[in-house]
């Protein structure tokens, strides 16, 4: 095969050498052109041989080669194991995320089966099914995401429908395997709960026709469910301390509305900045007309030299700041039925900032600072107490398909004191290549 190709190439050389010299004679450009045309017949024959089909058939559509990992669907499997120790025996009080390490010793907090593919010419489908072991070693299964995404709506619009992580801020929509730290940032945990803000509904997004990237997104999703903790989730009494009010969905005012605006600039050849502002408006279940408003800003900056080896070195900075106004209605205490808690607005805020330094190929050092606080209220919730955390970590990626991480957490909880934790994390990926979103 190799011999044959070489022969083909040589077969063309002689006539073409003559042709290549022809244009140098300035007076015979036209002649050269016709010579080129004559030679083109030979070329077309050569191409026919290379392509293995007649040159007349111009190939109506590019044939996309089938993806290797299987038929009509890409399958990916990501498994995460955590191991470690903390000075706090009740790890659950420190690490409140669903995919954070939950016990001293070993945990498998997140194993994802990710499926995706084109549904038809109009939709792409995604699904993420999560298996996890709880602190007793019992397996839990959750349908984390299942949605379709339109591929060809006019006017730069795009719809997403199904169950999905709401596009609020930067980290909320990311799956645990793309987090840069072992655990969820404190502020996201407080505002969105153990599993992030995730619900069923519709999201529309519009890519603005500006010279730089600007995208406006609006999600309209259910305000009740397991992962809408600041809204009508069954877990929200942990925030307001009252007995949850049953309230039916009467109209749009009972849905959770999440707008977001994001913009990005390439500052230089090697630096990119992404800025976003998000909000979430919806009812909560402390009373029949109580509402919650959350506002957030986020930023991400990355530097990577023009000739990076496998994407290294790099420096990135990411931060988010959130503010919550939780209108708690007058409500009966969940713990003591004789106590009535007054009508009040609970104000919470928090932020995290993280820096990652990709020192050399596949080695990343990270540092994150977490801060969260809530104002005084008639009900004390651990989920609203002042807290500060610093987490340096170190990650080694043997390849893109596996990683080892070690992280130390210094935790400082008001009125509880400080704790020290050390976590190890190992992750592997099978199947479809994980794509690196910016």
């Amino acid at each position, binding site marked *: 095969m190799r011999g044959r190709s070489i022969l083909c190439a040589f077969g063309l050389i002689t006539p073409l050498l003559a042709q290549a010299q022809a244009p140098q004679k300035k007076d015979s450009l036209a002649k050269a052109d016709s010579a080129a045309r004559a030679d083109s017949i030979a070329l077309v024959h050569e191409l026919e041989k290379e392509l293995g089909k007649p040159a007349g058939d111009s190939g109506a559509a590019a044939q996309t080669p089938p993806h290797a990992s299987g038929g009509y669907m890409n399958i990916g499997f990501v498994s995460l194991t955590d191991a470690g120790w903390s000075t706090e025996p009740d790890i659950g009080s420190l690490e409140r995320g669903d995919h954070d390490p939950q016990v001293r010793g070993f945990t498998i907090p997140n194993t994802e089966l990710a499926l995706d593919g084109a549904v038809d010419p109009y939709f792409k489908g995604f699904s993420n099914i999560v298996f996890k072991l709880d602190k007793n070693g019992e397996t839990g299964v959750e349908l984390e995401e299942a949605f379709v995404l339109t591929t060809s709506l006019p006017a730069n619009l795009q719809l997403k429908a199904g169950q999905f992580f709401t596009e609020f801020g930067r980290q909320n929509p990311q799956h645990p395997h793309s987090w840069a730290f072992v655990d969820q940032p404190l502020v996201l945990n407080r505002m969105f709960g153990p599993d992030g803000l995730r619900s069923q509904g519709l999201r529309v997004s519009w890519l603005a026709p500006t010279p730089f990237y600007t995208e406006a997104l609006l999600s309209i999703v259910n305000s009740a469910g397991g992962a809408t903790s600041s809204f009508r989730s069954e877990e929200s009494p942990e925030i307001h301390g009252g007995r949850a009010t049953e309230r039916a969905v009467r109209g749009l005012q009972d849905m959770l509305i999440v707008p977001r605006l994001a913009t990005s*600039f390439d500052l230089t050849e090697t630096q990119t900045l992404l800025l976003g502002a998000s909000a979430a408006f919806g009812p909560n279940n402390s009373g029949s007309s109580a509402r919650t408003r959350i506002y957030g800003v986020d930023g991400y900056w990355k530097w990577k030299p023009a000739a990076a080896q496998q994407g290294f070195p790099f420096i990135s900075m990411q931060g988010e700041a959130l503010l919550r106004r939780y209108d708690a209605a007058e409500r009966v205490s969940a713990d003591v039925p004789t106590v009535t808690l007054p009508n009040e607005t609970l104000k919470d805020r928090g932020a995290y900032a993280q820096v990652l330094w990709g020192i050399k190929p*596949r080695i990343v050092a990270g540092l994150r600072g977490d801060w969260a606080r809530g104002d005084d209220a008639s009900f004390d919730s651990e989920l609203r107490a002042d807290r500060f955390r610093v987490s340096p970590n170190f990650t080694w990626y043997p390849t893109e398909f596996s990683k080892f991480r070690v992280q130390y957490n210094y935790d400082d909880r008001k009125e509880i004191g400080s704790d020290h934790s050390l976590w190890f994390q190992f992750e592997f990926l099978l199947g479809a290549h994980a794509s690196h979103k910016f």
Partner: protein
Amino acid sequence: MNLHRIATLALIAIAATGSSAAAQLRVVATTPDLASLAREIGGNVVNVTALAKPTEDPHYVDAKPSHIVTLNRADVLIEGGAELELGWLPPLLESSRNARIAAGARGRIVASTGVRMLEIPTSFDRSKGDVHSLGNPHFLADPVSVKIVARRISDHLAQVDPRLAASYKANLVRFNARIDAKMAEWQRQLAPFRNAKIVTYHKDFVYFANRFNLEIVETLEPKPGIAPSPAHLAKVIGTMKAENARVILVQPYQNRRTAETVARQAGAVVLDMPQQPGARPNTGTYFDMMDYLVTTLAAGLRGQK
């Protein structure tokens, strides 16, 4: 008042992008080598942009939001295919919401289609490294493969923009003629080094070596995408000495220091051999780049004879 100014600016920006839209066919290529081919075939009537920088590793490009904007406005997208861009192109395409460049659309060109791929693995097994299941994707370093890609580009441009079909066809004929003439020159330049033994960092010169009768005896990466280990490098040095391999080819995004260390111990030289036009001064086109590669390699091999 400030808001007013922003709104006005935004409107001007919208108007500007709108008006330029009608004028020229916007072709986006994932890498500069594909962009160069698009310029050859499209001529100055098309507007060509490359997503990856010339010095950037095409396997590890950051999927930046600015790429989404570029893809959103593209009439044609040329990708290398064979999973070269698998790590970063899919999320961009998802966000680009552009049916003109969707898989199977006329505006989507997969360069690897129709190319005789080398090193297609017989089994999917990542213990062999990050092997591309559709074959080695670095085929543009072979000018004969490039002719196949050029023809595909010409066909698609003609379909997307039938008014200029004749021009794209003519450019293809001219391009092929030039490639063949240049091939003769390149073959002649490298003829004295027939079966010369070379070492590369990654498996990215397989097609080049095949075309120009060179023999790759080792790669510094023990397996594709896997970092060189000291034990593997010791083996490479041994092989290089035994086989009399005197050059190591590296691209700008590969670890030159590792290559230098091996070269020093094996009595070899490291050659900068970027496969992307524009990675070195005066290598802006595919032809300039190939000239550079052939000349650099010939000089390197001659110097070591």
